[in-house]
């Protein structure tokens, strides 16, 4: 038997291109359905576990999926903003704990999530090194984001401008990294957490600048009257919140109407959750309340429907590939008639010839199996990232 494998190996080595094509075909056709299944399992696990652990999400009326993806996975979707009054409304109802989130800005490609300290307790997030948020201008970084950006407590991180060409826009804020979170194996690992007020400072709703009424430099004053001082555009706005200038930071107007993306509501019990849901059913209601598990379940149903179509396509392609491979072998046998005859004439039995051909097929199938295994291991290793890239981002 070993001899048969030796001769088959020699034949395969000689016909490299034909063998490579055959191995590639068999590998791909066996890899595709397994990889798809892995990804779907991964997406179901990742999406559902977070959705199930988030009881209710409140946001502006519009795409339910966009709202849930932005609130739970900090995706690039931008649901319509609501105001802090939405969170206060839940607080005043005493039916649930409101956790506002504001996910709009990024820093070096990672989402900046503005929220309150309750978010960390709710998700069970612990600080691995450094400390939690204490004053505005600070940030706590998710484990993966910190790893990728090589950040540790004491470093700083600058928020990215929303548009490169918005020269008159908001100044980026240099945030102080005060803590790195423990790995949670969720979207929280890839986020940069700041206090809601810091997110408003990034947006320009809160800012710090020199005391306009005390300006000595005449080039900073456009007009000064008894009751008003108008500053020029030269007035320096602080781009970093430090111990020295924190007192100059202020918010204009009523912070109750400041924007947030959504509110995660954690009801005291099931009954409170149901009563709260009932309060958003009015005709003139501008907000929607969602159970993320239901929204994600709907998304997964669609993915599974697509998966069924893909399975059918893969089956047809697999059948065609198998038939093509059979054809390749049949043609190959016809081309090798003289060679087989020669082997027969030098004394090999028909069984030996069959063994030789079987050994060739076995080697090709085994090589494809190994290759497919390696590829599946790679996919398995990066399932979370691939799921994020394909279904979340």
């Amino acid at each position: 038997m070993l001899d048969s494998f030796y001769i088959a190996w020699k034949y395969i080595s000689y016909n490299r291109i034909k063998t490579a094509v055959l191995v590639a075909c068999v590998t791909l056709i066996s890899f595709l359905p397994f990889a798809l299944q892995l990804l779907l399992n991964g997406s179901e696990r990742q999406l559902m576990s977070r959705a199930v652990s988030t009881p209710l999400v409140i946001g502006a009326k519009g795409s339910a999926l966009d709202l849930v993806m932005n609130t739970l996975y900090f995706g690039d979707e931008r649901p319509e903003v609501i105001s802090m009054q939405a969170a206060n409304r839940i607080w005043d109802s005493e039916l649930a704990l409101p956790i506002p989130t504001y996910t709009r800005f990024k820093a070096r490609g990672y989402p900046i999530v503005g929220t309150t300290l309750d978010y960390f307790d709710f998700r069970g997030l612990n600080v691995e090194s450094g400390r939690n948020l204490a004053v505005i201008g600070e940030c706590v970084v998710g484990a993966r984001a910190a790893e990728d950006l090589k950040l540790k407590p004491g470093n700083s991180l600058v928020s990215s401008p929303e548009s490169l060409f918005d020269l008159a826009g908001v100044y980026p804020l240099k945030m102080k990294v005060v803590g790195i979170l423990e790995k949670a194996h969720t979207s929280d690992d890839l986020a940069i957490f700041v206090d809601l007020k810091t997110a408003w400072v990034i947006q320009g709703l809160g800012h710090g600048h020199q005391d306009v009424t005390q300006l000595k430099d005449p080039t900073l004053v456009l007009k000064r009257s008894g009751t008003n001082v108008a500053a020029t555009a030269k007035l320096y706005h602080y781009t970093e919140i430090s111990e020295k200038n924190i007192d100059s930071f202020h918010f204009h107007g009523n912070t109750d109407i400041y924007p947030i993306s959504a509110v995660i509501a954690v009801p005291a019990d099931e009954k409170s959750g149901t009563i709260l849901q009932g309060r958003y059913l009015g005709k003139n209601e501008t907000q929607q309340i969602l159970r993320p598990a239901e929204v994600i379940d709907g998304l997964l149903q669609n993915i599974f429907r697509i998966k069924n179509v893909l399975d059918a396509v893969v089956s047809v392609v697999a059948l065609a590939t198998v038939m093509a491979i059979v054809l390749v072998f049949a043609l190959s046998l016809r081309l090798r008639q003289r060679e087989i005859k020669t082997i027969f004439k030098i004394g090999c039995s028909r069984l030996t010839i069959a063994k030789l051909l079987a050994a060739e097929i076995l080697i090709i199938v085994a090589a494809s199996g190994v290759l497919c295994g390696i590829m599946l291991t790679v996919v398995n290793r990066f399932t979370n990232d691939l799921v994020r890239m394909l279904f979340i981002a």
Partner: protein
Amino acid sequence: MIFVHSLHRWLVLFLFLLFSGANAGATEASLNVYVVNYPLKYFAERISGPHVNVTLPVPPEVDPVYWTPSIADIGAYQQADLILLNGAGYAKWVSKVSLPRSKTVDTSREFRDQYITVKEAKTHSHGAEGQHAHEGLAFTTWMDLSLAAKQAEAIVDEIVRKRPQHEDLFRANYRSLEKELLALDSRIKAVVSPNHTIPIIFSHPVYEYFAKAYGLNGRSVHWEPDQDPTPGQVAELNKLLESHPANWMIWENTPIKSAVDVLEVMGIKSVVFNPCGNVPPEGDLLSVMKDNVTKFELVFH
């Protein structure tokens, strides 16, 4: 017979140990409450007695409204079981730190529609925002003693939520506190109302709620009790007196003699009405307020 006797002893000992163990397990941890000023500390302590450990980490010589906490202080607030805020913009640091909302109670939120807005005298403009003033809120809400009672009510509600097993005691303590606050409120009204239009000067703009609640005819200046008045401040006061001929200035703390002398030359007498934002050296909030009212009788007699 001896065996039965000894068995009884063992049984009694076993039951004693069992119950004493159960009682030890049932000892509740004291509720750890952090507050931002003394009136809230006083209310929380009056209501909850020994069941709550109330901390005001502001040094006694500092006015809590202008105090800035260190990172360690903020950490202590974050770790507390309950954080009592005064609301109405009291203590600017609160708007610049991260506190867990689930543990935080804004004791004046219930009457936020009664907040008093104060504007900076001078507006300014920069950037695209146009002309604006940094509006603020008057923050000494407890100076209106009926509002103080409402703040105490917000505290009792939250403490009862955290320790429902002592509800009866907490509610009874609150009712007693409310009664005292409202009695004092009535006494101030009785003292002030016959002559409430008498013009008075407040040394600092911290009496807005007090003036509104009791209908006082007061105007504020910015004089510090431990500093000599500058010529500018004296000129400003003289100008104010033209339209507001007051004979009394109300101080937060005992003013230095030179300031009192300057005022006396202008025909203005001084009297202290301590808002009691921090722990008083002697007495408590109510005794300080009672003392304030007694002094006030001089002004409105």
